[in-house]
């Protein structure tokens, strides 16, 4: 068992999350990934937005920033550009990253800046008590969708790939070991990486959608997750209502902060010759 307690800021605990919340599982997966990679704590920065999951930054014993709603990625971009030596990991929720922060999400992917974004995806705005998000399934219930969500959700994986992210994966709180491995790969990728971590919100989402308590929601994750390798063997009918887990995409592209450093170097050389 990895010693992940040293990565926790014990003075900031207990956390604010509800009983049964999956955020703790996703956070633990993150800490295990950081431990596996033996990231230098001093050179690692955790940046989060606003929402339940974004409070995780405060519990982590690193350089941490709990920014404004939707704005974790711009802060992270400034941090990475200012000091490319730093490992920059963003913690965000589904609403934080794809609604109010959606523009920053696609542009960070487009730049392929070396930031790892972990989306704690519970399909709902939990902090404000259960409103639907751009990742809430059609017809799911929320306080702002009492008759069911009429909007179509993003497929965040497809969105990230289309926007230019060079590592995209999806995992769940149920498959916590796999989630850790995906995060390891995401952090190692030198570019913009996204891990869509599906997690349960029994209080604000589960109750409203009659999904039962936390354990039952975790089983739902188990029963609806389809491994990447199995997809090709499945019919569209069999895939309906399911989601794919595992590594969804790996690409190669220039990384923005490194490219900028090359520019500085080329100008320095040119300046020296002149």
């Amino acid at each position, binding site marked *: 068992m990895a010693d992940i307690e040293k990565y926790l800021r014990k003075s900031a605990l207990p956390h604010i999350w509800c009983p049964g919340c999956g955020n703790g599982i996703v956070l633990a997966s993150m800490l295990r990934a950081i431990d596996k990679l033996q990231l230098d704590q*001093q050179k690692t920065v955790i940046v989060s937005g606003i929402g339940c999951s974004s409070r995780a930054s405060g519990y982590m014993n690193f350089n941490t920033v709990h920014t*404004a709603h939707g704005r974790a990625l711009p802060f992270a*971009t400034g*941090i990475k550009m200012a000091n490319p030596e730093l490992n920059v990991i963003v913690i965000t929720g589904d609403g934080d990253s794809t609604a109010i922060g959606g523009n920053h999400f696609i542009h960070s992917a487009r730049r392929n800046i070396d930031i790892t974004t972990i989306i704690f995806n519970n399909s709902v705005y939990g902090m404000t008590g259960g409103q639907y998000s751009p990742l809430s399934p059609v017809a799911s219930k929320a306080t702002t969708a009492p008759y069911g969500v009429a909007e179509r959700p993003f497929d965040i994986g497809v969105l990230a790939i289309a926007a230019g992210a060079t590592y995209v994966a999806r995992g769940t709180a149920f498959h916590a070991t796999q989630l850790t491995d995906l995060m390891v790969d995401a952090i190692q990728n030198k570019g913009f990486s996204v891990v869509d971590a599906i997690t349960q919100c029994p209080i604000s989402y589960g109750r409203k959608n009659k999904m039962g308590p936390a354990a039952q929601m975790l089983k739902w994750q188990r029963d609806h997750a389809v491994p990447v390798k199995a997809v090709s063997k499945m019919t569209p009918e069999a895939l309906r209502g399911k989601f794919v887990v595992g590594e969804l995409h790996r690409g190669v592209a220039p990384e923005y902060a490194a490219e900028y450093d090359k520019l500085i170097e080329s100008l320095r050389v040119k300046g020296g010759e002149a």
Partner: protein
Amino acid sequence: MNKARLMQGNEACTEGALAAGVRFFAGYPITPSTELAELCAEKLPKLGGKFIQMEDEIASMGAVCGASLAGVKSMTATSGPGFSLKQELIGYASMAEIPVVVVNVQRSGPSTGLPTAPAQGDVMQARWGSHGDRGVIALSPGSVREAFDVAVHAVNFAERFRTPVIILLDEVIGHMREKVVLPEQDDIKIINRKRTTLSPEEFEAYKPDADEVPTMMPFGDGYYHHVTGLMHNHKGQPALDGATTKEVLSRLHTKIERVQDEITLYTEHFLEDAEVVVISYGGSARAALTAVKAGREQGIKVGMLKLITIWPFPKDLVQKVAAQAKKVIVPEMNYGQLVGEIERYVGLGKVVPVNRYDGHLFHPNDILTPIIEAAGGTI
């Protein structure tokens, strides 16, 4: 000695910021401020610094906050509508005490308004644009050379007091070209962030020093700490109790109020015996000074106080200058913004607002006429 150069206000402002050590700029194109971004895009990489054009105004503000937390002096530039978009994160920078410089080359509003016409539309937005209470520093230069000096001061104030500092340029100063002689780099006083002498274990990121400003350590140096826009204790951790809230909110004001005299920048003109006092700033002050000189030529005892520091409002200075005056004339290129503050400290009876909000800069006669009237003369 540097040679004289023909330079635009926006360019001088950029040069001043770079001279003061700004090495990160994030921005988004908007008229009439875009030259700042263009110049930074060209010059920063040559200085080993970084420029990034972000996807929007909000992202630019977030990026400069992030870069500053990582230890790099940072600046962004915008104009009225973009300044509105940045306000939430300007408040974040106030709350989390992140040194950043925000240049606002003002234009006319509301909304898209007059994108390329001179106005001083954001004087109150600079003070109150972000939600909640906080102390604010805003500086408004009145010439191209002043734009350089103000930029140096802005960077220094931001670093020293850990606060966003607003530079209120206007289109008159931003786009005007004047002959300037810039100071030698060695003659420019540069203030860098203080560093702690404590060990990482002892260090508390938001524990104020004697000057009420906490010591800031950059990310990556081993001084782990939490930064949040929530109310927070000395460790930077969320603390939402009444005592903490009162302490933080008070200090966000008093750390600036206590240095009011030191950071009040202004110039005085013919004030010794002035019975009519013009108080102006930025582009308006240029026409105002011409009008004051014309008034003097007509034998009117008129003088001028040109404010460079707009916020914190230099109330003592204004009261002192106004005490001897029969009338105080306040020309502004807006419907009347700073005049309210002057009325608050001088009294309604004495103050004569003079406003131009048709997208044109003042003609000196716009100000000379009320000067003559205030002196009891007829035109």
